[in-house]
């Protein structure tokens, strides 16, 4: 029997790194403040002490340099797992990710590849303002050659991170920072739960090696009336919104948006005939557009109501208005009711 332990998402991610570093000496971790200090969110805590200075170390404050050097390491044959301190600060490395990491295998006809796993805390809900809250998944999902993974709970976080490190492609691994310590249902006034007292099975995490495969969505809740597509923090918000609405919705946690589990999506919407998409990122040009288009293309004859998107408004993340901006359970419930009441 697999030994398991209650872990929060930070511990689960730390465990994934520890397992991989123990198993494969080509796996190394570096980034701003990840070494001695263990990372500003403490995901790399203890790794330097355990695995040594050169296996987990600090980096100069340059995201382009961090990703660029990781690509070079990967081309040599290592499996680097760099951290970018906040997803908002990944943009200085965007050119390295798009023009190099994503394209190296293709343009060299397979001679070189770039199996870098870029971990980065992501999303809002922590009063971090414009530059500690953004959800930039759409600008990665569009880039051919990159995979984009977004876990929603400790179990998936560990299993998906291991699968990402073991995968031969570059992976953007977005960690919903609002979920690090516990699930979040989009109700800021509610008492906070830790993962340990959340009652969720996904807080029970195997201590050893396992994978949650990329490209396989999770069915969080079966339902018959409408399909809800979500990922990251929004999976929990969706659960709350569904309860709020009283609608018998099916909730799918995409887990990775590239590769995307198109079969799970299609099967569910064909069954329910309705679809609501929920994401934190601002709406226009967000990944919800792609999801909506795909669902519409593949389920046209099954749709009994317009596919709705519930998302952040089209503005920079507005600090004081966090809870006005945040697409919470009430907005989702509204959309669900609209969908099922659509005549």
């Amino acid at each position: 029997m697999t030994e398991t332990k209650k872990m929060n998402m930070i511990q689960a991610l730390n465990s994934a790194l520890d397992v991989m570093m123990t198993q494969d000496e080509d796996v190394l971790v570096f980034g701003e403040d990840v070494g001695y200090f263990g990372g500003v969110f403490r995901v790399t805590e203890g790794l330097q002490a355990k695995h040594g200075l050169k296996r987990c170390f600090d980096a100069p404050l340059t995201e382009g340099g961090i990703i660029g050097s990781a690509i070079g390491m990967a081309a040599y044959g290592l499996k680097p797992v760099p951290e970018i301190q906040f997803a908002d600060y990944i943009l200085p490395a965007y050119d390295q990710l798009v023009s190099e990491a994503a394209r190296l295998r293709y343009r060299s006809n397979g001679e070189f590849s770039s199996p870098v796993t870029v971990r980065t805390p992501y999303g809002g809900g922590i009063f971090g303002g414009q530059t500690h809250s953004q959800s930039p998944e759409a600008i990665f999902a569009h880039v051919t050659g990159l995979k984009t993974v977004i876990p929603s709970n400790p179990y998936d976080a560990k299993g998906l991170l291991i699968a990402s490190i073991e995968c031969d492609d570059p992976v953007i691994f977005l960690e919903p920072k609002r979920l690090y310590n516990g699930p979040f249902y989009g109700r800021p006034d509610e008492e906070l739960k830790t993962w340990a007292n959340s009652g969720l099975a996904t807080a029970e995490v195997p201590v050893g090696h396992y994978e949650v495969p990329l490209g396989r969505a999770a069915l969080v809740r079966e339902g018959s009336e409408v399909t809800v597509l979500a990922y990251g923090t929004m999976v929990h918000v969706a659960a709350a919104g569904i309860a709020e609405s009283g609608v018998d919705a099916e909730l799918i946690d995409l887990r990775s948006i590239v590769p995307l589990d198109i079969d799970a999506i299609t099967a569910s919407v064909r069954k329910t005939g309705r679809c609501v998409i929920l994401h934190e990122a601002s709406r226009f040009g967000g990944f919800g557009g792609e999801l909506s288009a795909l669902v519409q293309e593949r389920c046209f004859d099954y749709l009994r109501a317009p596919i709705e998107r519930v998302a952040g408004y089209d503005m920079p993340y507005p600090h004081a208005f966090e809870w006005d901006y945040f697409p919470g359970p009430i907005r989702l419930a509204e959309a669900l009711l609209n969908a099922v009441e659509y005549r």
Partner: protein
Amino acid sequence: MTKSNLPRLELHIPEPPSRPDTPITFDHVNRGEAGAVRRPDIAEHESNMRDLPYELIRVLDDDNLAVGPWNPMLAPETLIKGLRAMVLSRAFDDRLFRAHRQGKTSFYMKSTGEEAISAAQSLALDKGDMFFPTYRALAWLHARNYPLTTLCNQIFSNAEDPLAGKQLPILMSARAYDFYSISGNLGVRFVHAVGWAMASAYKNDTKISLAYVGDGTTAEGDFHEAMTFAAAYRAPTILCVTNNQYAISSFAGFAAPERLPFAAKALAYGFPGIKVDGNDFLAVWGATQWAAERARTNNGPTLIEFYTYRAEGHSTSDDPGRYRPKHEAEHWPLGDPVERLRDHLIAIGAWDMDRHAAMEGETKEQVKVAAKEAEAIGTLGQSKPPIEEMFEDVFAEKDWRLKEQLRELKARRAARAETQGGAGA
């Protein structure tokens, strides 16, 4: 070299001189001698100034007297103004940091130990010169008497927040005070300062710009791009590295290996770099004056490294005891900027401890009054700007998306207010 006997390579990882469990050492700090570094003519050719980055410019000596060619010879009143800005900044930091612990704001960052830099520069530069600050430069505003209540309103994100709730606390913008908009992203605005200065030169204006990056941030490509642009177009700008020895937990040796001065980075661009004691109000002023004169006379940019020490944690989210010795700050070999200026003023007979204590009390009181006033308007989550503000300034004018979304939000609020008497998302 034949392959068989090649040595094995080793990856070198830089490490700081001290950790929480090792002795404090500042042996690597070469204080040099106050007054010893020459002050070249403002039109001196770069090739004759290549030794400057490796020396430390100081004005205040160990007897608290001002010595040497970089002494700006300021009137005592001016010095007292500067002292007041620093003392005020410290009082403000203290109270607002505590306000964070009390849940009144989402975030705060102190400037402790680094106040001399922006306080002196705020007073040394002209009105209309533009400052491109980092988040550790509020003393600029204090030196120019920015209304404290307004500053607290920004930090509390309340209904009177001058940035209307759109930005994180202390990431200020204050155009009327020549204080450019800060953001969380490090480094990115260094080159804005260069572009701004180029624009001033383009218009045959007389205004110059001033910009900061931290020691850690010099590693960003932006730093290099700014330096390259400044050099190419001889932009009238003063580019500063506030080297406080740390980037959160990482010591300055990542961005400047082997104790290389940050000032030496200027050698890559062909304009002068100087290294200045950042805890010495007079040295900061003198260096700024030299650089400003260079800029104003079409002699181009200057890089100034301000050598200082971050005496407190990085921000309200940090605990420096995890990565550096607890009492390291007290051992910083270049002292405390407030104490040094105070002691200089006393040494020249223009100040005394009583007056100093009075100034401390008075600024503390001033801050208290302002904070209370702001608290009465509201603190984080208790009060906020009108919801319409959220939709303003995305563009010069709202497009249909924002109009629709504002309508949607208002309709939902109205509906919920009816049924439940409360708003929600």
